């Protein structure tokens, strides 16, 4: 071992390390500090005995206390469910309109509805109900099947063209495929598309649009309404959207309109009452109604 070097000033041994002429002193650590280190080691041994610690292939040492994080989680979840119970029963027993009038229930339904929505609905309708092509925006004020809380509740319960006795619309039947089924020829389809564009003052061919109005009155007005105000405004339950608004479920340019008229459309939504309990569906209805477009 190298010669121990002592610091002249303090008489303390140095570590021999030197930086820029400064030498590190090797002051001894207090003994109790060392003992605390031993206590920590002893503590870890106690921990091995009491808590799950060592892996044993597919198993592990369970520890004497029988502690399990998983069981703790299950217990916590059960506790949470129990705490929610009184609200869930109240929501199940209250009509969707009345839930909106009760501040506590509304807050609970909104919070729950938000997470249910993200779990079940957001995949198609988007976060916050922002919608996508073919999947209606739930935050705007255009509703194919009615935008009151009761309407929304019914739609979620029974779905649209779904496997459910009370489903909205008829399974397999939506908008007629006017072109594919040979009801209208290509020229007529172009004319009626031009007419629909003219409803938003976007038509570039006034003559075709005028001819298209006749086609519209004969073929389309039955579902979309005489003034294209949509089936809801016309008092029908067929899910035909208004054509006078700025909102288009399948695109509002001429090519999209021609495609829609040619091939028809039949949007589908599952009946959620088969998968979710009533309180959940009601919470969802309240949440969707409050996304901003509820009537």
């Amino acid at each position, binding site marked *: *071992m190298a010669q*121990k070097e002592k610091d002249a*000033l*303090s*008489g*303390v*041994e140095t570590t021999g390390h030197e930086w820029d002429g400064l030498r590190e*002193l090797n*002051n*001894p*650590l*207090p*003994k*109790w*500090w*060392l003992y605390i280190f031993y206590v920590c080691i002893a503590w870890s041994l106690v921990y091995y005995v009491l808590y799950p610690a060592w892996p044993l292939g597919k198993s592990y040492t369970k520890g004497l206390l029988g502690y399990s994080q998983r069981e703790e989680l299950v217990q916590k979840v059960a506790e949470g469910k129990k705490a929610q119970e009184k609200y869930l029963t109240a929501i199940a027993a209250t009509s969707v309109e009345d839930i*909106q009038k009760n501040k506590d229930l*509304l807050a609970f339904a909104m919070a729950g509805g938000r997470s249910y929505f993200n779990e079940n609905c957001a995949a198609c309708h*988007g*976060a*916050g*109900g*922002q*919608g996508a092509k073919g999947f209606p*925006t739930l*935050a*705007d*004020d*255009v509703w194919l099947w009615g935008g009151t809380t009761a309407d929304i509740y019914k739609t979620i319960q029974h779905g649209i063209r779904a496997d459910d006795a009370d489903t909205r619309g008829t399974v397999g039947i939506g908008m007629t495929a006017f072109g594919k089924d040979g009801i209208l020829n290509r020229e007529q389809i172009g004319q009626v598309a031009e007419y629909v564009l003219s409803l938003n003052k976007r038509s570039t061919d006034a003559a075709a649009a005028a001819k298209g109005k006749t086609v519209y009155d004969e073929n389309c007005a039955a579902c979309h309404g005489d003034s294209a105000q949509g089936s809801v405004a016309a008092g029908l339950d067929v899910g035909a959207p*208004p054509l*006078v*608004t*700025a*909102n288009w479920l399948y695109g509002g340019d001429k090519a999209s309109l021609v495609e829609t008229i040619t091939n028809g459309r039949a949007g589908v939504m599952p009946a959620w009452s088969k998968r979710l309990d009533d309180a959940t569906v009601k919470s969802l209805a309240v949440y969707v109604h*409050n996304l*901003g*477009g509820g009537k």
Partner: protein
Amino acid sequence: MSTTTEQQPLQTDPARPDRMERPAAVAGATPAAASPKAPRRASRSMYQKHSKVYPKAVQGTFRRIKWTALAVLLAIYYVLPWVRWDRGPNAPDQAVLLDLANRRFYLFFVELWPQQIYYLTAALILAALGLFLATSLAGRVWCGYACPQTVWTDLYVWVERLVEGDRGERIRLDQGKWTARKVGRKALKNLIWLLIALATGGAWIFYFTDAPTLMGEMMRFELSSTALGFIGLFTVTTYLLAGFAREQVCTYMCPWPRFQSAMIDEDSLIVTYQDWRGEGRSLMRKSQSWEERKAEGLGDCIDCFNCVQVCPAGIDIRDGLQMQCIGCGLCIDACDEIMAKVGRPAGLIRFDTQTSQVAIATGGQPVPYRLWRPRTILYTLMMLVIAGGIGIGLLLKPGLDISVLRDRAPLFVALSDGSVRNAYTFKISNMTRDPRSYTLAVVGMKEASLSVAGDGQEEQAGTQRLTAGPDMVATYRIFVTVPRTGLQGATQPLTFRLTSADGEVATYDSVFLGPAN
């Protein structure tokens, strides 16, 4: 290293090069080195054995100051949670209450919400600067008189002295056999220590919950496990730190001694042994007069070790300024007592500056204490700025705060009539004690109309009425709708302005998004 006193001067003072030269044979030089049986290779332990400090009782000015500080600080600690402060019917009436459960801090006339935690930061900075200033003025007076570690250690040593006697008796007791008397004394001492610790831990939690309520729960043995846990924690730490760790906390755990030298300069008052007057130290002989002593080259220090024996840090102040010194000045009292007895002037050990000491030692006059130096002026100015900032902040502290978060899904919603709507989560913090109503208006977009989700109010151009309960945060979902004609580009700035019924205004800048074309 087994010297009886640990000597590790932290710094060398350029003004006092003599500080660097230590007397070769300080009292209690290493016996291991002197022993012929010492092994050839220095068998220095990696770890240092704890040598217990037995502070001796002492009387004098600084001891009186220390007792006074102890009494005042303990009184503040125990009484403060019981001071009442009327804040009206809906608020706690405890003057100092750190209500963690409800996320409010109450300090007399100040009520802080969690988002105002920066006041705490400012207060901590102020406290740190105060510590710096005190240190540059008079060394580690905080450590010596006001630090909780010092106060409780002092209290514990006092108990120890009452039960086991003064220094000599305690040493004899510790070295003696375990007799019934020793067991009894030790048991009694530890029992009193534990009671003090329990009272300390018990009082601590009063700062976090309403004190009278908690006291009632204590009396009925109904304390929550959280409260009991904290009482237990502070009982154990008080007992261990003040009973056993003591000066070890200051030397090894506390970071402050390690960098205090950065705040001290040659004009700071520090506990100083006047070596020019004291050296060479030598025991007093009755036969020798002071004149004869002086002629022999001996100084005023009669090497009685009283200054060492009273020191709570267990150091020898005659080795100069040391990291372990907490600046309590008890050695001054001890020395003054002895000097009076032997008929020499007091103040062989004194609070003095190094500048003054150098001047006297080199034959000059004592230099008057310089209170105002660049360092103290700077610390004072910084404190004034911070304190002023806190004061102005509290004076202008609003009773209203708003926060607006724009919905990002969907970014915006196109409505059937072509207009565009954005949704915002709107939070109103009503930091007053009354329910308040507000008028919300949108500034910056003329054609904007406002509606509130779920309140049944009609959408209307311009304004909406909102309310918030006392001392509460109200959350609303606000829809802003703008017709296409009102849109200019995809992003437009927008300001929410909330005006309370009594005229307090809060604004929040946000944006309104729409389609790009």
